[in-house]
């Protein structure tokens, strides 16, 4: 399964949390390798994500952060020629096992994207989309209200639920997308640079929201903004591009430790800005 080239470079994964004896991880990757066609994107990533924590993923552009994030809900397989080796374990089950339906995975591992992408439908229908496709038969009004409240959007839109989701501001659209993801009651929420298209005020609101949601679910967030990672995350994973051209996990530690006493010189170079 694992080819020789990867075995030769396992030293790139410096910190594997399993060394700390962590067994309570909700999501784990084991020897995760990823390719788009012939492009080697992720090299031998081992990473344990603890439940009810915010895990931030930082690193330079092109280091495979987003690809890594999308391995957790099998979004990458929508792209032809994507290939994955190794395993991603969610609640003790390999989600890439042949018996696992990706649709089932995505119902439990929700996702918020870089650019707000509400459907060209009403606010109500945006939030109700997930429960509807998942065959939810209960009180839809209640689900919509609860989800919008959890996403801190309810007060702004409660009188206008029939309005198009596209009529909202960028920050509101992103919170609508969060509400939409929350409506299917996922255990894990993946966020791919959710604030990169937003202004500072909207960003602050999303960050506040992430802190609140942390009480209820596990969040993995890719961010370009190290200050953001420092503000909102419990633990931070630093990725960089290895000599093979693929992204590697350099260091994964408590956010505070990673930013103050990085163990790897590459991490230190990046967070102090000496990265080329």
């Amino acid at each position, binding site marked *: 399964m694992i080819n020789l080239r990867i075995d030769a470079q396992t030293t790139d994964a410096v910190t594997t949390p399993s060394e700390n004896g962590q067994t309570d991880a909700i999501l784990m990757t084991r020897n995760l390798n990823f390719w788009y066609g012939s492009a080697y994107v992720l090299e031998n990533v081992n990473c344990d994500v603890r439940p009810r924590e915010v895990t931030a993923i930082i690193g330079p552009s092109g280091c495979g952060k987003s690809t890594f994030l999308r391995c957790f*809900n099998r*979004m990458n397989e*929508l792209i*032809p020629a994507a290939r994955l080796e190794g395993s991603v374990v969610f609640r003790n089950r390999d989600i890439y096992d042949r018996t696992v339906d990706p*649709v*089932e995975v*995505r*119902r439990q591992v*929700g*996702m918020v*994207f870089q*650019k707000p*992408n*509400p*459907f*060209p*439908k009403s606010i109500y229908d945006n939030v109700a*989309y*997930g429960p*509807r*496709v*998942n065959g939810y038969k209960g009180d839809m009004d209640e689900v919509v209200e609860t989800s919008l409240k959890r996403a801190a959007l309810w007060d702004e839109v409660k009188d206008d639920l029939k309005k198009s989701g*596209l009529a909202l501001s960028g920050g509101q659209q992103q919170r609508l*997308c969060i509400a*939409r*993801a929350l409506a*299917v009651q996922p255990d894990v929420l993946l966020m791919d640079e959710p604030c*990169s298209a937003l202004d*500072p005020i909207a960003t602050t609101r999303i960050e506040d929201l992430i802190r609140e949601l942390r009480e209820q679910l596990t969040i993995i967030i890719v961010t*370009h*903004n*190290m*200050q953001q990672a*420092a*503000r909102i995350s419990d633990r931070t994973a630093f990725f960089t591009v290895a000599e093979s051209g693929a992204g590697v996990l350099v260091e994964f530690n408590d*956010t*505070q430790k990673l*930013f*103050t006493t990085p163990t790897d010189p590459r991490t230190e170079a*990046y*967070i*102090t*800005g*000496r*990265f*080329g």
Partner: protein
Amino acid sequence: MVRPLLTAHRDVRPKNAMDNAKSLPRAHPAADAAASEPAGFDFAQSRRDSLRRKLVERSVHAVLFLCALISVLTTTGIVITLLGETIQFFGEVPIVDFLTGTRWTPLFASKSFGVLPLVNGTIVVALVAIVVAVPIGLLTAIFLSEFAPARLRSVIKPVLEVLAGIPTVVYGYFALQFVTPILRDIFPQTQIFNVASAGIVMGFMILPMMASISEDALRAVPRDLREGAFALGATRFEVVSRVVVPGALSGILAAVILSISRAIGETMIVAIAAGLQPQMGFDLLRSMETMTAYIVQVSLGDTPQGGIEFRTIFAVGTLLFVMTLVMNLLSDLLVRRYREAYE
């Protein structure tokens, strides 16, 4: 607890590690410009260059404008020709009789100029064609854009294009020689020239256009939306039926309207396979005459030019032109609405 640590880092961190543009040191643009200005500036040379550039720009502009003008002039010419003869025609036949009469016998001894039988025939054939082309075309488009693996797509697309490239006269004989006998086996009362056969074959002729425009519309639905739906645990079918198709709806409607427009204007298939009997009704197994088929009949026949009989084709042509124009404007309107949908 984390914040103070970061503040400590902030001073030593150069710009490439910072995504917050607001804290980047800004170079002064004016200072750069002043520095790069050459010491001695040749104003005469500069003016010559500038004149030459303007000349080239203007001639390119003029040539392009003339090319664009040709199509406008052609359209204007056609409209003027049509209108001139049509106005003369309506000098002799009241426009109300033309538009509401149900007997079309301009070539007979007892002349009657009610165009409705031709309109009836045109609409019935177009409807049959649309009933064939829209569902098959739309499903083909959905398959090609959402389901087909790249290799299969690379086979189906060219085949569709071949279908689009077949001359309509071939389709006409295909209808008459192949489809009509089959229809007659199933429904013995089918006339040799019948609407069903012409309509079905016309549907296949329109199919590539319907499929290709719909596919463009489906593909124009942003990937973000598809991913958003997939991420919520939607199956491929749920993504297509609840996000992609609704998102592409106005584009698909535009495809339908353009297809109708094409079906109304199609000539050869109906002239060959639908017959030349202007009559009202919706019996698909009978012969009917469409507006286009009538124009062919008169143009190719021995009807003398200049007479009222000959002028009928201009009146029919104008009506046809107006009908397709309205259709195209409608589709234009829909496409424009559709373009705005995601911006």
